[in-house]
């Protein structure tokens, strides 16, 4: 019974961690102010 409880705690913790990380996600960011280019840019650094 104790072993089952320990396993359930481990499983619940892993599931909770993954759910939290995926729910937080990644920030959307913003549209770049750079224009769509109509000239040939110089060498890329």
């Amino acid at each position, binding site marked *: 019974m104790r072993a089952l409880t320990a396993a359930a*705690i481990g499983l619940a913790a892993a599931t909770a961690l993954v759910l939290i990380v995926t729910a937080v996600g990644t920030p959307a960011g913003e549209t770049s102010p750079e224009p769509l280019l109509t000239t040939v840019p110089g060498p890329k650094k």
Partner: protein
Amino acid sequence: MRRRASLVLLALAVFFAALSPLLRWYAFPRLAKVPPGQYQEVVMEAKPATLLDYSTLRAERVERLTIVQTLKGNVEESEKIERGTGRDVVVWDSLSHVQGPDGAMVSQIPERYIFDAHSQAPVHAPGETVDGTPVRRDGIQFKWPFLTERRDYSYFDAQTRTAAPIHYRGVRAFRGLDVYYFEQTIPWTKVPFPKKMPIPGIDASTLEKTTGTTRWYTTRRMFWVDPATGAPVNGEEIHREELRGGTLLGGRDRVTAFAGHVKMRPDYVDHTVELVKSQRPLILLLTSWLPRTFLALGGGLLALSLLLEARARPRTLAAGAETAPAPL
């Protein structure tokens, strides 16, 4: 004490063993996505090229033709479409600016490509266009999905405005990366004139109707794709365009409008390879390195937990036997 430690180790073993598949098959598909605000430009060149001089309507050999392609993520539009579709969506506004050797514009084709941020599958929403004309993309464009598979994909061709298979041709070594090589051939197809062309006073949208001259195009498109990120690290096209028939050609059957082998400029190849090499570890971390490490760790901890349990058990039993009441 040992039993308590073995239980803690068991909980940790289950934690890491469960984390392994959860990370790979639950978290990764949700976390890996193309950022909606990405801005990227690439310069491609055909050196030399054959180009139509629109003042004389004769094809000339030129030293170089340059194509500047910009992709700009439109965050406001993607959020608007996300509200309607309930999916993570990326909207790329792109412009292909074609420039002759004298720096003059040859053509400009704007596009709006809307796709799922996770799978890169096209999403259909108002505003999906090529050169201002609504289109419905059935294939990928510009980028392959994360964890690209060794199979043919459907790839959208902006000139014909249709999707056609792009064939997987095998693994190639490219600048220290093992990449997948894809190839697509578009046979001679009649295509619309670009709305922006270097012919003053001519409305490109009615050019075919008024002159009877048509524009035809064929290409062999090649991509070297990093399978982890799905990002092409190199691209080439053997591209030909012709104008055929009508009054514009002065009785000639056909003239070459453009012919050349278009390749990415070397500095952009270097930049793209470096960018991909910096992003690859993040994908591999979530899909391979962490899941495998966690699985091994879970197995190791489980073994340790069982070992401790096995060592603790005989003592407990022995202790239990000592304290048990003697049979009557």
